[in-house]
């Protein structure tokens, strides 16, 4: 892999210029600050901060972005440990165990193991990405239009059926997203669809506006409609440190988590809910004293936190090499690339190597900066948790408005933003997951393009869609995912009448109970 190392060195050369180091530092600081704020997860942090980078050159913007991404992940774990209720799915497990530690006066150790574990896992995960991305790129270069379409279809189906509790609601969300994605000019024939003569709609709905509307405005309206009168209690924290015994108990979970999270993140149904949960179960099984779990075991923070950050690196592999976002944050980052007229995919590595490898190198740099920022400054970040809630949610609306106005300088965009916010509000109220919608808006037009391209090459014969072994395999996985409830029902029936009243609906049952805790947030 000498070529990969050369590329990485080139990336460091880009990222280590003083100006780009400054962008990275601004990125991690902003990302941590926004990520710590209650109610703001990494996806919303990235979406809200997107406009800040508009004035920069692409390399600087993406270096800042890498910092925001990892910073948002770090910030989320602080919130989860010091306030019990987690804002994002990735931190659910951290919240369970970390908050118990904090309640027993071990907040400092919980934050320390989370920060150091995130650093180690982030570094290992990014290294794994450095070596898997070129392999994926050379694989992706052999992909035909039919293969791309199949993989995108898999991303749709996986987003609807693996995450969340109710598949019907997942598909409803996807359908709305696909419909929004249709608005604008049809790229092949130039006819305008669903635009009703409104010039702003003829160009399509800006994906950034959809993301900020659904994530930021929708979340602010939703929380405002049921705001807690007394904000959740914040546990005070002093200097962050770890004792000898804590180190001894943490280092193995860190390493296990680092290797566990990455492959899950890289899968089309990626995300961190499942691997963090599995890591927690694994650490409980391997622990010297499993009885401590649920009452503040440090392994239960170290493992899942490492897993979470490593999967965050894994998510970048399909995003950069295939242009396939699998989580909300990746979807927003893909949008950022599109803002600069860049299309992530195998060709990006050929055409813009400096930018891609600069981004990857700055992930390492940002990670190291975060460790330096988080250990000594944790008490300062924790103070952000006490921000009065009216200011917090007014601030979210304020920054959403200024950021979206900055995109096109159009007041109409603000009205559209509010409408999308109301849509996001409705979806939260009635339990429609938001991730399928955002993935539908972004991938819908691309999937249509690949579908039409594939069928054009085969002269309209549907055989064009299943020409390679890869696409056949992907369709098999899609079929399995779609038929999974039937398969499960059959297994249960064979096992002898496990189908009680609970089994009638898909969103009940033991899995749903577990997933009920691991809800995808923003």
């Amino acid at each position, binding site marked *: 892999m000498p070529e990969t190392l050369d590329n990485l060195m080139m990336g460091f050369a880009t990222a280590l210029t003083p100006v780009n180091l400054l962008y990275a530092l601004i990125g991690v600081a902003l990302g941590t600050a926004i990520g710590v704020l209650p109610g703001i997860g990494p996806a919303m942090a990235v979406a809200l901060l997107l406009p800040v980078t508009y004035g920069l050159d692409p390399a600087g913007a993406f270096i800042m972005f890498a910092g925001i991404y990892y910073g948002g992940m770090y910030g989320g774990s602080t919130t989860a440990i010091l306030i019990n*209720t987690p804002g994002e799915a990735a931190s659910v497990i951290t919240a369970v165990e970390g908050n118990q530690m904090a309640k027993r006066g071990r907040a400092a150790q919980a934050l320390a193991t989370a920060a150091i574990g995130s650093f180690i896992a982030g570094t290992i995960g990014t290294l794994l990405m450095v070596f898997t991305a070129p392999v994926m790129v050379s694989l992706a270069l052999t992909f035909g239009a039919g293969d791309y379409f199949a993989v995108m279809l898999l991303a749709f189906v996986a987003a609807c059926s693996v995450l969340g509790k109710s598949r019907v609601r997942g598909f409803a969300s996807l359908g709305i997203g696909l419909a929004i994605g249709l608005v604008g000019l049809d790229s092949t024939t130039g006819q305008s*669809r669903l635009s009703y003569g409104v010039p702003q709609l003829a160009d399509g709905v800006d994906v950034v506006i959809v993301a900020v509307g659904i994530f930021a405005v929708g979340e602010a309206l939703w929380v405002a409609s049921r705001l807690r009168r007394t904000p959740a209690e914040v546990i005070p924290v002093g200097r962050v440190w770890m004792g000898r015994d804590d180190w001894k108990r943490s280092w193995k979970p860190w390493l296990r988590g680092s290797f566990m999270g990455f492959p899950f993140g890289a899968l089309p149904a990626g995300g961190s809910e499942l691997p963090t949960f599995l890591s927690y179960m694994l650490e409980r099984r391997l622990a010297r004293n499993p009885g401590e779990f649920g009452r503040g075991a440090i392994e239960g923070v170290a493992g899942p936190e490492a897993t979470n950050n490593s999967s965050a690196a894994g998510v970048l592999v399909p995003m950069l090499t295939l242009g396939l976002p699998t989580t909300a944050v990746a979807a927003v980052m893909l949008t950022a690339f599109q803002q600069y007229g860049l299309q992530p995919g195998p060709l990006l590595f050929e055409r813009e190597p400096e930018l891609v490898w600069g981004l990857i190198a700055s992930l390492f740099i940002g990670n190291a900066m975060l460790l330096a920022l988080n250990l000594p400054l944790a008490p300062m970040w924790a103070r952000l948790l006490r921000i009065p809630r*009216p200011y917090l949610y*007014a601030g979210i609306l304020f920054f959403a408005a200024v950021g979206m106005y900055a995109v096109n300088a159009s007041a109409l965009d603000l009205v559209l933003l509010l409408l999308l916010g109301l849509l996001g509000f409705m979806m939260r109220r009635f339990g429609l997951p938001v991730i399928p919608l955002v993935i539908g808006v972004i991938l819908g037009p691309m999937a249509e393009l690949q579908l039409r391209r594939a069928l054009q090459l085969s002269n309209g014969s549907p055989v064009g869609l299943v020409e390679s072994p890869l696409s056949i395999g992907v369709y098999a996985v899609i079929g399995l995912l779609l038929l999974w409830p039937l398969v499960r029902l059959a297994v249960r029936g064979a096992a002898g009448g496990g189908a009680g009243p609970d089994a009638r609906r898909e969103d009940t049952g033991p899995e749903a109970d577990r997933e009920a805790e691991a*809800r995808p947030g923003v």
Partner: protein
Amino acid sequence: MTPAPAPEATRPAPEATRWWTGRAELGVCVFLYVVAALVLADAATLDSGLTQQRGPVGPAAVPVLVGVLLAVVATLLVVDVLRGGTGAAEDGEDVDPDARSDWRTVILLAAAFLVNAAVIDTAGWIVSGALLFWGASFALGSRHWVRDPLLAVGLSLGSYLMFSALGVWLPAGPFEGIL
């Protein structure tokens, strides 16, 4: 597409309250049917004639698929809701799961947001942004008559200066040329 109807648009008529109670989610189904109808109706107006066509799949094919998907999902959701299924409302740090929806706050927030959209082009971001922040924090229950407006002006001025420093244009309104 206009993702307009907020849930309240499809709220129960008073005389039907009993049957509708707990089934507000059917409003989501109505919304999905409306979107499906819009997509399908629009697809019907597209010209898929041979002269326009580039390749075997015309511009209407995918919209028809999306419209059908939406209609099918809407129907499945109706069935699910009538059988007693409910979508779990999202939780979060500041969400009180037992609270009833506070419509007054939501409407005031939306109003503050629209006021900003209405005046930003003429009054400039410094004025309209301050109105937005102050209005939104008022809607959310903050009643500090000195601190709130000062903070609002500070934020809108600060964000204006920060965005200009980063090379992003915002309207200055009456302060054009001064700042």
